[in-house]
C-alpha cells in the first residue's frame, strides 16, 4: 500500500512539474510567436508617429526611454535609502532585537501592499502638492515601491553574513560603521543580484505609474512632463481596435520580457563571477 502511494504521488508530482513548465513555456512561446513578426527596428528607435494608434508608422521609443528614466532614477534613490536600512538592521541592531524584527515585519507588509495602492497614495500626495502626472510622479511612486523590494532581498543576503567575519573585524578595533565596509565587500555580489532582480520587477510594474506618470508620445525633457512606460504602452496598444496596433503590443511585450530576462541573467552572472573575494 505504501509503495502504491509513493508511486501515485510521484506520478502526480511529475505531472505538476509538467503543468508548470507547460504553462510557462506557453507564455514564452505565445509572446515570441506573436511579438516577433511585429518586431522591427522602428519599434525600438522611433517615437509613435501621428497615426501610430491606428496602425501607421512609429515605434515605442517613448515608452522605452520613459521606463528607463523612471526605473533608473528610482533605482538610484531606492538604493540610497535601502542600503543604509539593511545595514542598520543587520550591523547596528542585534540579531534578536525587537526593533529589527518590527522593521522586518513592516517591510514585509509594505512589500505585500499592491502597487495600485502605492499609485493611489502617491497620487493623493501629488494632488496635495499640486503636482501633475509627470516623470517626477512616476519616479516617486516607483521609488516608494522599490524600497521594500530592495530591503527585503538585500536583508536576505545580509542576514547570511558570517558572524565570524564581523567578529574578526570588531576584534581589530573597528567601529560598526567601519565593519560595514567589510560587510559590503562580502555581500556586494548579492546586493548586485538583488538590485537587478528588483529592477526587473519595477520595470514591469504598470499599476503604480498609471496614476502618476501619465502617458505621452514624446520623450520627457524635464521632470514635470508626463512620461510613457512600457507596460502602460502595451496595455493601451492592446485595447486598440486595430489589429496592427495589437500586434505591436505583442512586440512591445516581447521587448519588455527581453529587458527583464537580460537583467535577471546579468544578475545571475554577477553572482557567479564576482564572488572571488567572498569568504565561504
Amino acid at each position, binding site marked *: 500500500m505504501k509503495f502504491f502511494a509513493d508511486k501515485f504521488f510521484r506520478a502526480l508530482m511529475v505531472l505538476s512539474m509538467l503543468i508548470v513548465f507547460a504553462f510557462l513555456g506557453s507564455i514564452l512561446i505565445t509572446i515570441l510567436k506573436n511579438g516577433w513578426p511585429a518586431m522591427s527596428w522602428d519599434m525600438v528607435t522611433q517615437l509613435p508617429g501621428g497615426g501610430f494608434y491606428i496602425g501607421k508608422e512609429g515605434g515605442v521609443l517613448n515608452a522605452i526611454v520613459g521606463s528607463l528614466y523612471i526605473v533608473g532614477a528610482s533605482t538610484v534613490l531606492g538604493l540610497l535609502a535601502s542600503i543604509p536600512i539593511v545595514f542598520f538592521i543587520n550591523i547596528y541592531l542585534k540579531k534578536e532585537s525587537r526593533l529589527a524584527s518590527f522593521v522586518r515585519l513592516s517591510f514585509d507588509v509594505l512589500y505585500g501592499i499592491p502597487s*495600485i495602492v502605492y499609485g493611489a497614495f502617491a497620487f493623493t500626495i501629488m494632488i496635495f502638492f499640486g503636482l501633475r502626472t509627470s516623470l517626477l510622479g512616476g519616479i516617486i511612486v516607483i521609488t516608494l515601491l522599490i524600497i521594500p523590494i530592495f530591503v527585503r532581498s538585500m536583508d536576505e543576503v545580509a542576514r547570511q553574513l558570517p558572524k565570524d567575519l564581523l567578529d574578526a573585524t570588531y576584534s581589530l578595533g573597528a567601529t560598526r560603521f567601519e565593519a560595514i565596509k567589510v560587510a559590503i565587500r562580502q555581500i556586494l555580489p548579492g546586493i548586485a543580484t538583488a538590485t537587478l532582480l528588483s529592477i526587473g520587477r519595477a520595470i514591469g510594474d*504598470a*499599476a503604480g505609474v498609471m496614476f502618476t506618470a501619465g502617458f505621452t508620445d514624446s520623450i520627457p525633457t524635464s521632470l514635470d512632463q508626463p512620461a510613457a512606460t512600457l507596460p502602460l504602452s502595451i496595455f493601451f496598444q492592446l485595447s486598440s481596435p486595430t489589429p496592427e496596433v495589437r500586434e505591436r503590443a505583442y512586440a512591445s511585450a516581447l521587448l519588455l520580457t527581453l529587458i527583464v530576462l537580460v537583467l535577471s541573467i546579468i544578475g545571475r552572472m554577477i553572482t557567479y563571477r564576482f564572488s572571488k573575494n567572498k569568504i565561504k
Partner: protein
Amino acid sequence: MAVPLLKKRLAKDRCARSVMLALTVLSLLLLVAMGVGLYLKSEMILDRYSLWTLLTTSDWKPLKGSFGFLPFIASTLAVTALSILIALPISLLTALYLSEYAHSWTKRVVFPVLDILAGIPSVVYGVWGTLIIVPWIADALGPHFVDYTSGYTVLASGIVLGVMILPVLVSLFIEIFTIVPQDYRDAAASLGATKWQVCRKVILRKSLPGIIAAVVLAISKAFGETIAVLMVCGNSASIPHSLFDPCYPLPALIANNYGEMLSLPLYESALMFAAFILFFIILVFNFASRLLLRRVEKRYKL
C-alpha cells in the same frame, strides 16, 4: 594624535547610526502615512454612507451616487481564492519533486529558469491570458458548461493569476524544503519510510511555517495584482455567480476609472476607499498570518 582620531571615528560611527536610524524610521512612517492618507481621502464617502452599506450593497452607479462595493470585494476574493487553489497544489508537488526526487543537475537548470520566469512582468501574463486563456474558455471549455461566455471571466482571471504566482511559489517552496536538515530525511528513511512518507511526515510538517509564509506572500501578490487581471476579468460590476461570469476586482476598478474620478469628488473618494480596503486587508492579513506563524512554530517546536 591618536585621541582626536578615535574621537573622529566614533563621531562618524554615531553620525552614521543616526542617519540610518532616521532613514529606517522614515520608511516605516511610509506605512503609517499610506494608511492615514488613504483614510483621509476616503472620509468623504464614509461620511455620506455607512461602512456597512458600502461593503454590503452591490449597486454601483457612481454618477448617480450609489456606491456598493460588494461586487468588487466578492470578485477580488473569488479570483484570489481560485488562483491559490490552482497554484498551491501544483507548486507544492513540483517543489517536492524538484527538491526530493530530482537529480541535482535538474535543480541546477530549473532553479534559474524559475527565477527568471518569476520576473516576467505581469502585463505579459495579461497578454498571454487574452491570447490563450480567454479564447480557450470562450470556445473550448465554456460551451460544455454554459450557453455563452465571452471568456473574460473569473476563471480566466484565476488561471492567469495562478500561473503568475506559480514560479514564485515553486522557488520559495524549494528554498524552504532545502532548509530541512538531511538528518531528518535519513532518520525517517532508515526507519523504512518511503520517499512519499518522508515528504509528507517530515518535509511538509517541518516546513509548515515556511509554507504558510510563502502562501501569505502569494496571496498578497494575487490579491493586489492589477494589470494582468484587468485585461482578462471582463470588468462588469456585478457579483459573479459562476466561474464563467465576468468579474471586477478592486484593483481593476481603481485602475480603470482613475481618469474620470477627478471630475467628481465623491467618485474619487470612493476609489480611494477601494485602495484603502486593499491596504487594510493586506495589513490585517499580514499581521494575522504572522501571529498564526508564531503559534504554529510554538506548537511544532520548530
